[in-house]
């Protein structure tokens, strides 16, 4: 899979305009993952959809708003320079096949199947919690994409064991795993005595989930060995990124940190990783992937 660097824009973040992608790529993003696209356009939930929390985390229930696979494919069709990973969301194998076909003429470096969004019914985690369905969808997506682009599966913490989801994805032919998505959560305002998000439930992201995400990457790497992993969850700086790589990730994704920093954060994390490697005498990034697994 073509990546221009190890720090990738996570799905759901800023992923809507090709001009913004260009800007992020120039700022050092190794690739960009699009917003999760569905078969037809979705408007998402009413505001409040995103809020910051006093513990440094972010809570969102945007509701997977997106312009639909066809409109999005039309927008990115001219692109050849930016490595774009297309995130897809749906309930059935047929939907994923349909969407992948729409990107026939687009330069897509990978597909990331969203099987972990924690706040929309019938998709995301509800799919991820059903290993048989995961296997079927991944198999169909692999068939549809053929040799054109690898298929990643993004997992999260649902009601079943997420390692079973990872196993099912690998059985279905997944080329890599993205871990993890936001964690189902909520906020209730004490003064107003009601949930803050219009959808009541949303996904927690940012610094508070980093130790959990790190644990998941470590567990996946130790259980499934050679499957490449994109680490995601609360990464805010180069040190976080290095920790995920040491746990077993070959690349990392960032998202919520963009709510607090400018887009040059990509370049700053890249520089930090490079300086760290120089200091530690590590020549290639892959040489430190999973290094913390040793005993």
């Amino acid at each position, binding site marked *: 899979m073509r990546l221009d660097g190890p720090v990738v824009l996570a799905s759901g973040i800023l992923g809507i305009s090709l001009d913004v992608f260009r800007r992020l790529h120039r700022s050092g993003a190794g690739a960009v993952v699009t917003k999760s696209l569905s078969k037809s356009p979705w408007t998402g939930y009413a*505001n409040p959809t995103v809020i910051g*929390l006093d513990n440094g985390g972010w809570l*969102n229930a945007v509701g997977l708003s997106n*312009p639909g696979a066809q409109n999005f494919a039309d927008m990115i069709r001219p692109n050849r320079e930016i490595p774009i990973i297309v995130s897809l969301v749906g309930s059935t194998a047929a939907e994923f096949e349909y969407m992948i076909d729409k990107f026939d003429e687009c330069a897509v470096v990978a597909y990331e199947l969203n099987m972990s969004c924690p706040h929309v019914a019938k998709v995301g985690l509800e799919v991820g919690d059903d290993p048989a369905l995961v296997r079927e969808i991944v198999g169909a997506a692999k068939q549809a994409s053929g040799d054109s682009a690898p298929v990643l599966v993004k997992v999260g913490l649902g009601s079943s064991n997420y390692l079973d989801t990872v196993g099912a994805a690998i059985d279905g032919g997944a080329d890599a795993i993205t871990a993890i998505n936001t964690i189902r959560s909520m906020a209730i305002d004490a003064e107003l005595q009601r949930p803050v998000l219009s959808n009541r439930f949303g996904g927690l992201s940012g610094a508070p989930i980093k130790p959990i995400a790190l644990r998941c990457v470590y567990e996946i790497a130790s259980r499934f060995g050679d499957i490449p992993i994109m680490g995601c969850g609360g990464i805010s700086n180069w040190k976080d990124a290095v920790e995920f790589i040491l746990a077993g990730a070959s690349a990392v994704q960032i998202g919520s940190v963009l709510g607090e920093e400018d887009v040059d954060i990509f370049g700053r994390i890249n520089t930090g990783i490079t300086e760290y490697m120089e200091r530690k005498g590590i020549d290639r990034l892959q040489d430190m992937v999973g290094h913390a697994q040793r005993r």
Partner: protein
Amino acid sequence: MRRDGRIRDYPEAITVEEVIDETPTVRTLIFSDDIMSSSMPGQFAMVWVPGAFELPMSIMTATGRGRAAFTVRRHGDASTALYNIRRGESIAVRGPYGNSFDVRRGRLLLVGGGTGLVPLMRLVTHTNPDDDITILMGARTADEVFFDELASDLLSARRGAGSGNRDDQGSSHSTGDYNCGAGDYNYGTGSEAPLRGRVIVTTDDGTRGKKGRVTDILDAIVDCSAGGKFDAIYTCGPEVMMYKIVQTASRHGIFVQASLERMMKCGVGICGSCAAGPDIVCKDGTIFDGRHLLANPEFGFTYRDKSGIPTSW
């Protein structure tokens, strides 16, 4: 709370202390909030009406230490929910977000339509007494004119006592011809140096001030050489209006800034729903230089709907 406590990302409940009916469809809600009160001109807040919606609102100035306000026109569901909030009721507010106007010195032209006047009012409070300020405001009809008195008061208040010069009663300015008599620029009292400023009103139907749109008389105002060339133009309002203003300003080589409005959800630059070309409006903006805007293919033509599909204005 982050960045030295100057930004609050969690929507904090505040009580509306005062409600002012500006027009039959526009109200100003005043409240106490130190963080919002110290926001810069052009910054906005995400305002949640509990049980209804959250929407982006430009932060309005209010008299009294630690006070701020929102001025809302009832239009869609969200703005109507906010409009219907009464004194003593609670809303929740996070922010302030976005950048602010680059307030220049000298001869300034402020052009606003409707509630687009809000950030311009706060901008006036950041100008100097010796800046020469022309405020051009447009409305559909006389009943919908608001902030004209406030604008005059704010101009005067730049140096204690003084009286605003409201240029909306016709007289020599009732026709399309713009009279740039220098006398219009001077008012004030006592021995202090004269305050310089004026308020010009247009209405679509001519029931108040000059008949037509602000853009109809913009050229005449900008061309007027009596007071010297404008050093800067600031605008906020309907995008098609701002597009014309930015074009006029750039034709005359005048520094111009406009405040963009887009679909907003997060307000902090992560969700991407406010994207306009390469710009993330909530974070890079909402204020942009005219030169930058004219290079943005979406400015003046399209915005993205709730699902992110580019849509014509």
